[in-house]
């Protein structure tokens, strides 16, 4: 049986919304040769990812590290951060008033799991995974792609 890389639990786990998020992160890890020291778990939605983080904190043997990657939408960055803050308001964590641009990493006050939060695309603006991906693309690559698609002699012209 093949390994389901998007449903890995363990001592260090990264919770994501859906399979696109999982596969983008897997590809980035591969590209940058990030060692496999954590598992990725696809939760099905942003709300379920936040709920799973809360539930994991309550476990008998919680993970050592729990990360959360969700979109800064539905409705926006501020709204998402507020829902995260309210979910963890009764837990031993001090969340900053706004997300930290490089990703928010919080240590527990009681020795519990370390938490990490990344709101797509960059913790500073509203948006989602697709914006994060777009920002990685070089402008000339987009131009090349457009030229290929609009060139009637190109083998890709049937796509337009």
């Amino acid at each position, binding site marked *: 049986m093949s390994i389901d890389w998007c449903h890995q639990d363990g001592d260090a786990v990264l919770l994501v919304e859906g399979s696109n998020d999982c596969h983008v992160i897997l590809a980035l890890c591969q590209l940058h040769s990030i060692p496999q020291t954590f598992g990725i778990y696809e*939760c099905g939605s942003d709300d379920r990812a936040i*709920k*799973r983080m809360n*539930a994991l904190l309550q*476990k*008998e043997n919680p993970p050592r590290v729990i990360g959360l990657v969700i979109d800064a939408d539905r409705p926006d960055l501020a709204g998402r951060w507020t829902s995260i803050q309210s979910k963890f308001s009764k837990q031993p964590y001090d969340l900053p008033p706004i997300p930290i641009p490089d990703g928010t990493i919080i240590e527990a006050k009681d020795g519990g799991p370390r938490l990490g939060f990344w709101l797509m695309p960059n913790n500073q603006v509203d948006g989602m995974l697709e914006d994060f991906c777009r920002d990685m693309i070089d402008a000339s690559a987009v131009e090349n792609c457009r030229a290929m698609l609009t060139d009637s002699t190109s083998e890709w012209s049937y796509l337009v």
Partner: protein
Amino acid sequence: MPLVSSRNASEPLPLKSMGDGITRLFHIIVALVSAKDGILLIDEFENGIHWSVQEAVWKTVFHLAERLNVQVFATTHSRDCIAGFEGAWAEHRDAGAFFRLQLDASGLPTIKAYSLETLADSLETDVE
């Protein structure tokens, strides 16, 4: 022999003939009445009760415990029982509490308290 009179039957029927679930429910209710103004301990709450009616039984327990002034302590290992409890607790927010007993690394028993929200999150995301 305990008999049950039912709207659906012309004659009283033996309690025994109605299945383990009804017998269990009867025991719990009689125990609640006997424990008026006191406490009731129920071990393995779900025993004999079909998973689909666990929430209804919990609602009955919440209702009667409030009316008879009984504090109920119940233990379970059943996820369905916990899910049923969560459903009933959500309707009686000030009347319930949920704790998990576990052993810490040194083998000593410890207690973890759950809020209603955290219990709901744990059940919804299957983290237990």
